[in-house]
């Protein structure tokens, strides 16, 4: 979506056009939901948090001036809600693997691939769970959500250099935890 399209979309929402907001949901709902699911670890909570985030986005769009990209701004709102959720729940480790296993239903066309995928996912999820929340956050935003370092920095309100060092340290830790698991067993190699 170009900046111009974004501006038009925001202007339509600001005039009260609900279809325009539905268009925005088309683009961001899945991403925001996945982010919320990462933080909450449960589908009902993720749905609640996603709803809260989009409500805040809707209310905040009245003041959105377009100084940053719409996606970056939405991620910042989303991250603030997710971090607030974590703070309230005071969860040090989230039961991600159980919930993600429930909702991940792709890869079922090929039983072997599905089994490999499940095993791989379980290992990676377990390794992710053992990371510190700060390390996990940058991985979720960069690797899972596909944000650039600049966008992750904006979402977390930290310098880009911090994102870079956190990611580097997080992957170094993952390498310690996972070792050489991805060499032959990975379905992508």
């Amino acid at each position, binding site marked *: 979506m170009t900046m111009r399209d974004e501006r038009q979309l925001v202007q339509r929402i600001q005039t009260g056009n609900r279809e325009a907001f539905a268009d925005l949901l088309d683009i961001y709902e899945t991403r925001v939901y*996945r982010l919320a699911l990462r933080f909450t670890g449960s589908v009902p909570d993720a749905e609640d948090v996603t709803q809260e985030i989009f*409500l805040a986005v809707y209310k905040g769009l009245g003041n959105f001036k377009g100084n940053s990209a719409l996606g970056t701004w939405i991620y910042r709102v989303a991250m603030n809600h997710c971090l607030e959720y974590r703070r309230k729940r005071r969860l040090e480790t989230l039961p991600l693997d159980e919930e*993600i296993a429930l909702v991940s239903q792709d890869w079922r066309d090929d039983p072997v691939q599905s089994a490999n995928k499940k095993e791989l996912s379980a290992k990676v999820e377990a390794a992710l769970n053992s990371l510190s929340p700060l390390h996990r956050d940058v991985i979720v935003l960069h690797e899972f959500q596909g944000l650039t370092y600049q966008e992750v920095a904006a979402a977390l309100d930290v310098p880009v250099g911090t994102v870079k060092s956190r990611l580097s340290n997080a992957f170094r830790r993952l390498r310690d935890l996972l070792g050489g698991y991805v060499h032959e067993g990975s379905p992508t190699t």
Partner: protein
Amino acid sequence: MSRNRHDNASGHSPSPRPVHCIGGLLRANLKAYQDGETSALRGWLVRWHLARCPDCREELRWLQRLGEDMKDIESARPRPELRARILANLPSTPPAPGLRVVHARPEIARSPRRLPRLALASGLVMLLAVSGVFALTHYSHAKPNSDSANVVVKTPSSLRPPTQDTPDTTASAVAAVPYVPEEDPNNARADRMFRQSMAEMEQEKRTQGQDDWHRLLTQARAVARKSDRTPHPEMAVALTVSDVAATRAHLPGWAKRAGATFVTNTRPVAEDSGNTSSPQPRPNETQGNVIAFSLPADRAPAFLTALKQLGQLSVCPTATAALLATSLKPEAYHLYTAVDALGHAVPVSPTAETSAKPDANTIGTTKHAAAVRTLLLAIVLQPSTH
């Protein structure tokens, strides 16, 4: 990392780490390089290093594979009801200007004082980038390295739609990396640029280490003040031992018998040195590589002498730099005094006078320290290289 060298899929036998791997500084840039998030000069330096270092090539392949696997993991989709629920619960009024977003933070404000520094930094980066481009064009005749042919480098991506199945990698490969032969007379220039960039990265690492130290000391002060309102002069030393784990396990008990009290500790600095916020202190645990003790000042000389029996006691430059760089100048003065006096085992010198007036936040001026009876000592455990 050395542990994973044995997992090397490319079949390389473990070899001595090349000189350009020192400190793992370039290795720390591999992730950013893979993501296409390095500057032109640093990217060139990483490629230059990759052409010579099989370990780092393997590391880069591993990063790429894990990144691919991670992308495949994320497949959760919201139920259709959620969308309807969100739309149904929107306010009936349009989002008018003036409403505040819950939890949204303001745009990141840049202090006007930062602008000259930013301009200077930008100028420096431009200069380095031009040098990098010059070097790249200069070495364009070089041969590609066949060992790195399978490594794919990602370009910076913007938001990736979750429904897209196409990978975000591009065809730009490390195979295109120029290999700089050792005998190339222009190598001297490349080496110069390499050293320059290494110095920059060393500086970054020091700055991040300072943040860690600042955090540890802040936590240590807070803990110490809870139990004792007496100001604490501070000192930090590095203790190099052959077995960090064993020393870490026994040090608190041993220190207790020597009259010191365990205060707090942080996560191993060596593992998380690049992380500016991860090493959160964990009170009442003794697993970190940096351990803070409080002890009577008059016992400090004997304590330091005894520490020397456990390993090699030395100045901790990171801690010194951290304190000197922070606003905690009075403590920094004391730390400096302590380090200077390490050989003499005199942690605090009451003879030097300073004009700084002690208050609740500036503990430990020299004059004030004369009345101080307790010392806060941070010991960083580090493994000996042999």
